[in-house]
């Protein structure tokens, strides 16, 4: 549930990047036709706030990223043109941050959260490289890593620019925490288009998941994305309705301590939204933070001592480990009554946490897991995807 941890992963990845941008991909100027700028919305984006997709004329799709990182000052616009139409289309190079020929045949992505979208759209075979492949949990992706079809592109979670240039992917899907991005800049200059994925800035479960539609137009997979996402929305809303029928709504705490400071999701965060939709009462639901809170542990004890459930206690997977880490944990009712649930025991083969990779894309599964925990009588015969009781 800890959005912070994921953000942290993201943050660290972006120590060395800067922004940039002007890359033109095979855009020749033997002009045959140019289109009036009449934009028409295609496949509506209902939940995500960070991007839009529009048609501009019959052949051009404009993907606009309005929230590449929090509080971004300007948007990024990418023009997508079918490869066979590229010679015939004239575009003002300066009007777009990148012009990309579709369908893209080779792509590099930079966050594990991008993997499920590729897998869902059936285009994992287009993925040719990834920084820190050990964090990938997906079985299909792991097989391709073993076979050498997905190249390791750097250590410490930053892209190794040289390796990416040598690989020559048609597209790099990056992300950044701000407009400072050295590595991407170099890629741009070497004519490799970089597009920003801002899925991690979304604050709602369905908003995050809708970013699957962002990948679709690059690979001509709009229909598949539409279908997949509709199914997720349907599942999510059904689960939410089922949860609403529960007679009680149990109290919940989350997070864990480092030293004597407790880190837990803010009341407006992605993680807190799940608890609310699962018809449970998160003890810090009224706080305004959309990221995480860092509170003194005694204030957490005062407020959360009697909470019935405790979910996502950081990296802990057992009561023993939790008790060894701090005696203070034993003061909580959820500890005494053995009502703590974690996503940290579901790991990929190389140690990456499945939750970090897949949860943003499958909010319906996260919600069902939580309903299964908070309201044991509602989803019978349900096998949780992420959350397991502590051992």
């Amino acid at each position, binding site marked *: 549930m800890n959005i912070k*941890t994921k953000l*942290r*992963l*993201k*943050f*660290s*990845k972006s120590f060395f990047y800067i922004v940039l941008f002007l890359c033109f991909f095979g855009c020749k100027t033997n002009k045959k036709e140019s289109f009036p700028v009449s934009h028409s919305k295609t496949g509506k984006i209902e939940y995500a706030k960070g991007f839009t997709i529009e048609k501009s004329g019959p052949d051009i799709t404009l993907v606009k990223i309005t929230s590449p990182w929090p509080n971004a000052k300007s948007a990024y616009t990418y023009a997508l043109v079918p490869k066979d139409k590229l010679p015939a289309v004239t575009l003002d190079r300066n009007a777009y941050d990148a012009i990309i020929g579709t369908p893209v045949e080779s792509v590099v992505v930079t966050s594990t959260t991008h993997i499920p979208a590729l897998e869902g759209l059936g285009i994992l075979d287009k993925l040719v490289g990834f920084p*820190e492949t*050990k964090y990938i949990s997906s079985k299909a992706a792991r097989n391709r890593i073993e076979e050498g079809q997905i190249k390791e592109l750097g*250590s*410490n*979670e930053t892209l190794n620019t040289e390796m990416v240039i040598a690989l020559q992917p048609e597209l790099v899907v990056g992300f950044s925490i701000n407009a400072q991005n050295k590595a991407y800049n170099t890629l741009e200059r070497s004519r490799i288009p970089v597009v920003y994925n801002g899925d991690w800035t979304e604050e709602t479960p369905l908003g995050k998941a809708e970013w699957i539609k962002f990948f679709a137009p690059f690979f001509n997979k709009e229909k598949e994305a539409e279908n997949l996402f509709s199914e997720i929305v349907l599942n999510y809303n059904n689960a939410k309705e089922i949860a609403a029928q529960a007679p009680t709504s149990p109290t919940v705490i989350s997070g864990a*301590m*480092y*030293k*004597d*400071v407790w880190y837990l999701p803010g009341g407006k965060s992605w993680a807190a939204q799940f608890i609310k939709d699962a018809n449970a009462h998160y003890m810090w639901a009224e706080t305004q933070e959309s990221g995480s*809170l*860092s*509170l*003194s*542990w*005694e*204030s*957490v*004890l*005062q407020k959360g*001592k009697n909470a019935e459930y405790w979910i996502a206690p950081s*990296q802990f997977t057992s009561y023993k*480990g939790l008790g*060894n*880490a*701090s*005696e*203070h944990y034993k*003061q909580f009712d959820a500890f005494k009554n053995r009502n703590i649930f974690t996503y940290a025991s579901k790991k990929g083969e*190389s*140690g990456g946490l499945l939750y970090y990779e897949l949860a943003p894309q499958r909010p319906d599964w996260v919600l069902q897991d939580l309903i299964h925990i908070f309201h044991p009588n509602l989803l019978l015969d349900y096998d949780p995807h992420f959350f397991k009781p502590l051992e």
Partner: protein
Amino acid sequence: MRPKGTYTLRFGILMVALCGCLLLNISLGSVSISFTDTLKAIFGAEIQNKSLTYIIWNYRIPKAFTAIMSGAGLALSGLLMQTLFRNPLAGPFVLGISSGASLGAAILIMGLSLFSGILSASMVTDVSLALASSMGSFLVLFLVIGVATKIKDTMALLIIGLMFGSITAAVVSVLSYFTNAEKLQQYVYWTFGSLGDLSWNQLGILGIAILVGIGISIFSIKPLNGYLLGEHYAQSLGIHLKKSRFLIIIATGILAGSITAFAGPIAFIGLAVPHLTRQIFNTTDHKILVPAVLMYGSITLLLCDIVAQLPGQAEVLPINAITSLIGAPVVIWLLMRKRKMIF
């Protein structure tokens, strides 16, 4: 030299202030506990809310004792170093003790995962962290002592200590560069320092280390006073230079190393409190300075902790930020007011 009476009075006032700060520190925190409830909890009387008693006995009291011991130990080791090197800029960490401790912590938090390739988070506990950082600081300390036996010149020793510091800092940056975000954050948070969350056992170990350090310092008061007048002069007083220097370094290592191990590298106290004490007591005599820095150090860190806890707020601030934020202006003001430094 002042008449003895004034010092007795001053120490009396300091003692009262220390007890007052201790009580204040225990009664203030994120959770509002009334002063009567605090006293009740301390003296074992029943209070309605059981978790308040738990908070006071298992968190606030250990934290307050950690603050008292760390403040005293750091201030004393700062005084020892300033006198030994006759350098007002010296502090407990000049000999690379803190960088050694940081190296130990960094290897444990960030280094192990590089070699094992899986999350070794479970290996990082308070105990292992304390062990790793003490080992790190003692490794550097032994190197320094090894050098000290070869080198006559105290200033050269200071430079060598700084060099060791640079080497360990470089290793730490390489480790930081190759580690993942969570571990980097864990390490960075360790460097912020933290007085909370020591168990009574850990407090006992820390207490013993501090007492040993204080014992050696008391034993070294005569050579310390001699050092102020220069090494040659000290020799003419019959002070065994090498031996006393060795003892002073050992005392500093035990004090600063053990505190850094349990509470992280706490900044500022070691550098500033000796100056504060000299200015206020208007003396350079270590018979007075040693007990005075102990008390001032404790009071300072208790007060800083009260501020860091932001009484009544659920948030807390890192102790390291507060020590310098509050401490530095006070020292600047004192020096400005006196217009000259007593050293």
